[in-house]
């Protein structure tokens, strides 16, 4: 699989810590030409990248509110333009939180209802197969991936939820093994079991679980790989 002509960028904030993992999966598993974007390096634009991943971690220690401080950093301006021009952005975990705080996505993350950090495997059901992040997922597939976060309890006003529903912006929900959306399957108290949402144009997605940690059989499963396969497929067919 030669995807070397596809260029991916991974943003790095002080405190990002899933940057290497995403890099590993993109280069070593999917053979994509991947580079890091240090938050202070000032590329004039991000246009050279076919897609950008904001990886997980604890940007600025997540001290005030998860993602809050990174969302105020300069590079977010560039990402904003990139998104406006249709660029594909995937925010994973802390990346999702940053996208929310930067208002590229709508809603907010509260502390998990358990008030604890939760590291465990969850199941996800896709609700919109028509996005750059889901187009390679097989019909009716349920994906298994790990979560690892302290503030992944998605919350939004009903106005926001209505907006999301109208645009098919709810991309993934937590479900049980058989795909039912139940309270038991909700690991953090998220509204409507929401695990991943997109913006109106569906080119920016935030996802709480970590697809990069489940892209290899050796590590217990390859389901997360479908997210990256989708992005690659989308770019190839564009």
């Amino acid at each position, binding site marked *: 699989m030669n995807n070397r002509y596809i260029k991916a960028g991974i943003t790095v904030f002080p405190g990002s810590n899933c940057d290497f993992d995403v890099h590993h999966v993109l280069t070593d*598993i999917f053979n994509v030409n991947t580079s890091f974007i240090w938050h202070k390096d000032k590329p004039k634009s991000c246009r050279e990248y076919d897609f950008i991943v904001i990886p997980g971690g604890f940007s600025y220690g997540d001290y005030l509110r998860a993602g809050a401080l990174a969302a105020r950093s300069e590079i977010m301006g560039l990402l904003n333009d990139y998104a406006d021009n249709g660029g594909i952005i995937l925010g994973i975990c802390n990346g999702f939180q940053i996208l929310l705080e930067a208002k590229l996505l709508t809603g907010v993350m509260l502390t998990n209802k358990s008030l604890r950090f939760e590291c465990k495997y969850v199941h996800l059901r896709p609700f919109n197969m028509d996005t750059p992040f889901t187009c390679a997922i097989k019909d009716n597939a349920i994906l298994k991936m790990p979560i690892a976060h302290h503030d992944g309890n998605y919350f939004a006003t009903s106005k926001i939820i209505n907006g999301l529903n109208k645009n098919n912006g709810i991309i993934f929900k937590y479900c049980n093994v058989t795909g039912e959306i139940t309270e038991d399957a909700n690991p953090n108290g998220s509204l409507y079991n929401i695990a991943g949402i997109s913006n109106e144009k569906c080119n920016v997605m935030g996802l709480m679980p970590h697809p990069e940690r489940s892209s290899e059989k050796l590590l217990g499963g390859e389901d997360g790989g479908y997210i990256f396969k989708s992005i690659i497929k989308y770019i190839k067919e564009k």
Partner: protein
Amino acid sequence: MAIKAKVKKENYKLFGLSLDEYKKISELLGREPDDFELGIFSAMWSEHCSYKSSKVYLKTLPVAGDNVIIGPGENAGVVDFGDGDVLIFKMESHNHPSFIEPFQGAATGVGGIMRDIFTMGARPIANLNSLRFGSCFNPKTPYYVSEVVKGIGFYGNCMGVPTVGGEVVFDECYNDNILVNAFTIGIAKKDGIFLSSKCEVGNVVVYVGSATGMDGMHGATMASEEFDSKKNKKRSTVQVGDPFTEKLLLEACLEAMDKKLIVSIQDMGAAGITSSSFEMADKSGHGMTINLDAFPLRTPNMTPIEIMLSESQERMLLACKKEDFESLNAIFDKWGLNCVKVGEVIDENIIRFNHHSKPYKILDVSTVVNGPAYNRPKRKPKYLQKILPIKINDYRIPKNLNEIAKRLITHPNIASKRPVFTQYDYTIGTNTVVPPGFSAAVLRVKGENKADKDSKNKGFLLNVGGNSRYTYLNPYMGGALAVVECARNIAACGGNPVAVTDCLNFASPEDPEVMWQFSEAVKGIKDAATKLKTPVISGNVSFYNETAKKEGDKPTISKIYPTPVIGMVGFIEDVNKTVTPYFKDEGDEIFLLGRLKGDLGGSLYMDLVHKDFCQKPADTDLDYEITLQNCIRLLINGGMIKSAADISEGGIFVALAESSITNPNKILGFTVDLNIKELSYAEVLFSEFEQAFIITSKSHSEQKLLKAIGDFNVNLLKIGVVSKDIMKINNTIELKSDIIKNGYESSLETVISAAHI
């Protein structure tokens, strides 16, 4: 030279020195020390920094081996992992700080041990921890558990280092002294190891990381402040951890190392700048100048000794070539960290301090560093006379073993530790092949040709453990067993034990009985580590785990049981061959590999059922152990078995039950027939630390297995089959797997979430 008997202000007591030590210092200086000198000496001569009570014993441990690159003496030990890779690991205690402030204490413990690892040039790739709390009925226990666990998660998760294993033990003996032992392993290139001993004359001495504040100062401040109560109100001896800054420090250090801008480096742990500067000077055989005006301070106007003794976290001291300083500075600047010149390496074996732009003090390095070494008196404890071989016939074996079995599997020491380890990020790093919750953790190492998914993946295995009750009942065996048990867990996954680190948690070394326990435990570790060829390449000693209390009017001392904890690392050539302990499929055959002795002394069964565990525990035959472990590795490497579990706390019953209910995808059970001549059911089912494994294999493989172990002189006994959802042993036990699973998984949560203040 005669020293005046009158001692100034008796300050030495505040600094934790003895009168003899004070006199010795005066003798070395040729006069009585001033407060600055006293502060420096007391730090460097403390038990923690000087190992004065344990040195003579630690020297006896095996430290060399085929794979050992660096043994004890540096920040951590280093083993060769092949292909130009090395693994660097160490375990350290943070017991006392965690008792005072469990969240911050545990957090900074994890932060400290990670600095020990990356100061050597390694990127930390896994954490483990060994935690001991008081009885689960103690009303304070839930508070300690939840805070310690949160603290560990807070630090490790933020750093992005997976916490992949550990142990959680509850025992009354830790009611007033909890134990928090943290283990970190990192990976580096063989030619990229950094040491504290390498500085050269003319190098600049550089301080990097957080600013220095009044953290963690004890006697020193009290003495120099003369109890200014107003100022003391703002003070805290608790160190607050900042994992975000440490993550930046990690990246900055590794980047600077990668660019070869660092000559020598030492983290600032206990006794902060004092120990790092003196140790760097001592190990390199040089000296340095230290400009006390240069340190970045968080609290203005700190006195020289306050600066020297501060235990602020997330700092390092390093030496670099003069011409490299600007490049070094640029890197730390990029990461937003302090990076300041504080001195220079000099040709004399002294440290020259400057303060307020004037020469301040000069101290001789070797005088300060070569603290006392004691051969403290020891005496075999009296209680040991009463530890006799168990007479099982004196006890009524309960009729309803089902009930007993349930109580064992739901005991918090045995029950699932899920509520704990799900608070740790164990999947980050994309290396965790076998996550926490089974036996040893298994991690792969990403190879060069990674796109080739089917390529062999070398890996390593990690395990920590120890059993303090066994050590209390037989200190020698307890030490040995800790090593053996770790090795068993690693062997049961198919790994080869390679080396160990240890944390020796004991009460006061000034108590001769404690000193005896210590010496015996070290001897046990020594013998087992020698036999198993797992040298001790790093470690830590924590004494004084005891608390003075009043029971009624009578003052008593509550001491922990002697608690040696071992952290072991093993290798596996191909992680794809790893075997996990849980049953795989219905119909598979279950075997007992090894032998059963049935000693119940020290067991949880004796404690729970007969309220009396103080009998002689089982002996471990080290020669047999080696044969047994070689045998199981052979079977695993030959791909002949589907699961393997050792027999530890709770005995065979627990091993079988756990194997049935920990399969992540299904609930299984077993039908087992276990009649062992001369042993009662209680002895067969509940005796612990047997030299045996429970293994499974697909049906009709008995002959093949027997053939494979032909020469080994190890028994293989077919005892039953894996079944669907019932656990059945002869006519004594019949339990529903799902009910047992529920109890096993919820028990610890009940302990942690108990309401409390």
